[in-house]
């Protein structure tokens, strides 16, 4: 019962954030880019609910506008990673043998490679851009998903229903994607949300390190960093985005855990034990 409430609450929080991401620009009371240098950084007031930053921009409006970058990047990373990791994991786990060995060595290599280095260098090569950071994260995170899915696929592969499907003469692709994959749904779903959380936190970190979005973009991670100096005049300017990151991450984790549990129960093999 309480689990249900938590689940719904988490879903509601995420839904609100998604709404902000989609309609943030319409909802924002001010233009998030509008500067009022004469006003400068001030604390919360009726005109500016969460105050303003150094350039006199409305923090609340920027938070709303930032929801888009804060959520779409991680969402793309989460979905991309999961798709890539799941496909590779399924292929490696189902086919075993050489395919598996090669894929696993590649994932080893990816895991040993310092991710930050790849990011920095990649952003350097392609001349920057948030999209590329996002793409790089997909490639960097996928090996972890690949491993998880592979081990699950290895286990599923031994189950009788897979053998039954094979005796029915179904193609490997059908068995992998139509039979095994649906049974990994709870894990895949949980992976999506966990990766979302990790990506959310690390993309914010990238902004903090100055890789990623250009200055002035209303982005939560960037806002934390840019407005850190304002902790005395308007702490909300950096605390609010930090809190939102934590909130979004918490909600996504809770949702992931909750859905995982529910799916797992529903799909539980044995009715009894």
């Amino acid at each position: 019962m309480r689990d249900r409430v938590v689940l719904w609450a988490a879903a509601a929080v995420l839904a609100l954030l998604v709404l902000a991401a989609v309609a943030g620009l319409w909802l924002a009371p001010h233009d998030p880019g509008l500067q009022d240098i004469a006003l400068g950084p001030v604390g919360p007031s009726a005109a500016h609910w969460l105050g303003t930053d150094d350039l006199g921009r409305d923090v609340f409006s920027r938070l709303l506008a930032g929801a888009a970058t804060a959520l779409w990047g991680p969402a793309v990373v989460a979905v991309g990673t999961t798709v890539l990791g799941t496909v590779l994991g399924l292929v490696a786990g189902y086919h075993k043998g050489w395919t598996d060995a090669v894929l696993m060595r590649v994932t080893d290599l990816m895991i040993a490679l310092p991710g930050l280095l790849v990011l920095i260098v990649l952003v350097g090569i392609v001349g920057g851009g948030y999209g590329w950071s996002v793409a790089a994260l997909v490639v960097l995170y996928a090996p972890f998903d690949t491993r998880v899915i592979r081990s699950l696929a290895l286990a599923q592969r031994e189950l009788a229903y897979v053998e039954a499907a094979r005796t029915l003469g179904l193609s490997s692709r059908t068995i992998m994607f139509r039979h095994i994959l649906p049974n990994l749904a709870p894990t895949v779903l949980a992976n999506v949300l966990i990766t979302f959380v990790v990506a959310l936190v690390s993309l914010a970190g990238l902004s903090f390190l100055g890789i990623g979005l250009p200055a002035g973009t209303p982005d939560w991670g960037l806002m934390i960093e840019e407005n850190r100096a304002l902790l005395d005049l308007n702490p909300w300017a950096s605390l609010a985005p930090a809190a939102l990151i934590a909130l979004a991450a918490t909600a996504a984790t809770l949702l992931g855990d909750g859905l995982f549990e529910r799916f797992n129960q529903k799909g539980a093999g044995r009715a009894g034990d």
Partner: protein
Amino acid sequence: MLAIEGLQIRYGSRLIVDGVDLQVRAGETFGLVGESGSGKSLTARAAVGLLPRGISATGSITVGGTQLVGAREKVLRGLRGNRVGLLMQDPFAMLNPLRTAGQHIAESLPRARRPEAAARLAEVGIDDPSVLQRYPFQLSGGMRQRIALAAALARDPELLIADEPTTALDATVQDEIMRLLARIQRERGMSVLLITHDLRVAFALCDRLAVMYAGRIVETGPARAVSADPGHPYTAGLLRAVPSIERTVERLAGIPGSVPSASDVRESCAFVSRCEQARQECAEARPPLREVDADRRSACLFPVELQPYTTRDAGRPRSFGPTLLRVTGLRKDYRQVRAVREVSLEVAEGESVGVVGESGSGKTTVARCVLGLVTPSGGRIDLGTGLRHRVVQCVFQDPYTSLNPARSIGATLAEAARQGAPDGRMTPQELLELVGLPPAYTRRRPAGLSGGERQRVAIARALAVRPALLVCDEPVASLDVSVQAHILELLRRVNRELGTSMLFITHDLAVVRQVTDRLIVMLNGQVVESGPTDQVLDSPEHPYTRRLLASSEISVER
């Protein structure tokens, strides 16, 4: 020794066990039998105070006078191992994979008596002390069960609760363990609560027994008396469903319907919906467990109208078509393991061939080779013409994993039908009807089906491509007698009426007698004996076959 009164076990608001009363006297072996899911295991776990999290018990359970229900963990810990021991169903899961046999026994012994471990091992019939250094994975199922038994008995409990201690083992080993249990019980004068769903075992081993159904006891009494003259229609039904090893019966009769949940039948006879002699009163109030005889009680309001067995022998010789499957000199090695050394066999059109043999003798491997799931290391397999999957299909042992839990029954069957030849394709509804399930089941998922129902779906799936040959790998091993009877009857019908040939793998000779025409006995990856089923079973030639037959007749001297 153990007294249970008014025991109720709940999972949240769901009632699982409702009003169990039983007494195990000092030095006796008491049997608790009943269909799967009737609450036997939970009752056993309640008796050592180890119910799974979230499950709670009310009522009274006393062991040697100490109340267990609501007792503090400290009291329970003092009791467990010392006064009451528990032996569980699955020897493969009961031992810690990271600890050696010796460690298991030693850690159970009081500190001062650790060196005794070897002696304890000898007591359970293992004389080789080097076994102490082995890890569970290095031991066979029977050995593991013995180690577990030694560990459970380490502190000399007065009562041993054995929860289906042999279901996971094959016939010969099962027999050995049962004998061992009986011997130790006799030597130590220990009480034993033996939980089983195998009526033959219960009758052979127990002094008294209780039959459980839907969370309650429906009958109790001395084993002999109950077997000879069941006092409850449910017991009678179970007895009738037990396949005979001696002869082939005309019809295998399971009890129709399935077990209701305990919460649904609180105010009526639990068996009323499946009982052939049910009357108005049965559904109106809960019949009390009434005394019917000295030391015998039954929860049926009426005397049992015993129906006689069908005695007519149905094992008449049949005629078959040309050879459909020919396996010659089959060999399969898994690295060093020689799973199949040399197997040749033939199955004719319309014929049903049984394969028996001890665990690990390579039966499954042969089947998998025939199905094309593994590539043989040598020999040849000739299997008619056309796509292999349209010629041969399979029914697996475990109904719980053989259906894809993520797909509905309808989708599973439709997909299978699409794999068959395009002409004369059957719809999922027709397939369900073929195996005796309501068409509405197409929308369900496997989780919503009982084990027997799942096995029917698995059979329907295999039949969907209309194969000439059906390979059945222990299709009833994990099912209750009653459900087993239903499935065997279904398979027999498939064989006789649809003319589908069958390769039937099992270790249960009684089952083999009912459904096969010819029998092949395997040992260590080789065929040691083969011939018409009746002939092999009635006059076995190979010593192994004889041993197999002997251990199927459970006869423990008491």
